[in-house]
């Protein structure tokens, strides 16, 4: 067993310790190393991949429901819009800001922002409809200074920059990859023909032979809207990426 003896400084050592304490106090009183961010007037500089309020770009959405499937808090529900497509709504009362939905979105329809200070009047208002998700929420900004924590060598430094941090992240333009629906497990198909009925472009048809019925997807007509993927009762349809030259070759 190791016993640690309490240090017993002698008189001179004691006085030295007292003077040390006093000098430290004086130093901090004159030049404090305060690291407080005066929040409404200053904002911390946040990284571009900050998980904040989620914006929605309807043009990129292919209604694939992936965001709704992946959401661990069940905050995203799809709502049918006027054009018969399904678009996500986010209930911020449930959202845990994990941004799995943003990560999983194949078309970059959901985009992250650095907005983290939105207030709601009641719980119902927190269910954000698709129309509200398109534009960023109205913020009254009092801040003129952005604060940054920088690590230099081993020291954590506190730096104030006299500029406003842009809260809406500019993501690089999304390179649209053409996707089409395809059947990944034809042997499991029930031939229920729901996909045939739901397809708006009549790209899916059923070929009947004596032995079996096989669905056939016309890759030229398929827009990759993903409605059949959602409706398939055995979930064997998937959206798969088609590279440009391959689709041209067909």
């Amino acid at each position, binding site marked *: 067993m190791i016993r640690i003896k309490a240090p017993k400084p002698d008189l001179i050592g004691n006085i030295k310790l007292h003077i040390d*304490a*006093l000098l*430290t*106090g004086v130093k*901090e*009183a004159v030049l*404090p*190393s*305060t*690291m*407080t961010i*005066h929040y409404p007037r200053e904002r911390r500089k946040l990284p571009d991949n900050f998980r904040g309020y989620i914006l929605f770009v309807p043009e990129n959405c292919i209604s694939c429901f992936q965001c709704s499937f992946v959401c661990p808090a069940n905050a995203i529900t799809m709502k049918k819009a006027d054009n018969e497509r399904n678009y996500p709504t986010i209930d911020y009362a449930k959202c845990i800001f994990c941004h799995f939905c943003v990560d999983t979105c194949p078309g970059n329809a959901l985009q992250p922002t650095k907005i983290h200070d939105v207030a709601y009047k009641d719980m119902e208002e927190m269910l954000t409809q698709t129309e509200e998700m398109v534009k960023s929420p109205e913020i009254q900004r009092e801040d003129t200074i952005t604060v940054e924590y920088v690590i230099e060598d081993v020291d954590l430094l506190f730096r104030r920059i006299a500029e406003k941090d842009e809260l809406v992240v500019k993501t690089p333009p999304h390179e649209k990859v053409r996707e089409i629906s395809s059947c990944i497990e034809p042997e499991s198909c029930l031939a229920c023909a729901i996909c045939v009925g739901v397809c708006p472009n009549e790209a899916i048809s059923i070929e009947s032979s004596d032995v079996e019925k096989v669905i056939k997807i016309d890759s030229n007509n398929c827009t990759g809207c993903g409605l059949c993927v959602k409706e398939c009762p055995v979930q064997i349809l998937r959206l798969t990426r088609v590279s440009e030259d391959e689709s041209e070759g067909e």
Partner: protein
Amino acid sequence: MVSDAMILSKEYFMGNMVNIPLIQPIVDYLLNVPFVGYIVAILLWKPMFALLFIPGLTALMIVLLFIIWFERKLTARIQWRVGPLEVSRPIGGIIQPMADGLRYFFQEVIVHRDSHRPYFLQFPILIFIPVLLPILFIPAGSIIAINTPYALPVIVAIVSLIPVFIIAIGWASNSRFAYIGSVREAFMYFAYEIPFIFAVLAMILVYGTADTTLIVERQTIPGIILNPVAALVFFIAMAMATSRLPFEIPEADQEIAFGPFVEYSGILFGLVMTIAYEKMYILSLLMTILFLGGGNGPAILLLGDLSGAIWLFIKTLVVMMVLAFLRSIYARLRLDQALRFGWTTMIEISLVALVIGVIINILGWYA
């Protein structure tokens, strides 16, 4: 001789009036106005001026509002926080104590069932007698309320009464924390009282008088240079007496939640909370008088008699700021540690201070 008829007349007050050249034209005009002139003459009469303005009530109020804010702000600064700020942002939150005072004023005063109701309500107000009386004997330049050769013994005697009132407050509260706090206050009183009296006694020997006005006059060299040991003892005793850290043992927020004052709420808490600060003001004044040359300093011509008072005020504030500074760098001692320190080291040092005082007295420095 002043005849009986002369006392209470305007001319009597005007004979011993504070002379401030800066506002003299206004005073001269006001003195000729029938009724207002009489009031102005009373207000500017030196004893009344000392009582009401400086070093009396007005200065005390300013000091209280300033030092509470300053203590919080300085501690926050040293501990990397921000401190009070939002109440008045452009001036750094300096009216925060006033805001707190307003809150205390409108809060309900709760007198709990087990307390001794009359004493519980009386003592926070009665304690102002020993807290404020010593101000009468403190000279601010030429402004003094009561000029007596026994000023220092009277001040020390009255200051020694304050712990008795605090113990009584704790007793009247009749709660376990207040009880522990009272006992601690009593122990601390024993710990610092003898070194404190020795330090004052050493200075009385150094100057050869107990008259505060004479002491200030004789301090061509500040007392802190003549007898630095006594100054050290006095300073530490002051930290103990006003329960500043590292000797914040009777109040100890984290352990016994403000000790003797734990049961108070509302305006009564506001009163008892300021007692330590008022005591600190009195003792800082005493330290300034004994060791820092009181109101001595370069005369400011425009202020006339007020010049000495201003110097006294500034020096007192500096002493109080140093005391407030202690809070942010020291941890709290245990009661037994503080007692051991008070009964061994402090008494030894104070005896050394006393010897130095005797030597200076025999050498006859003041003459």
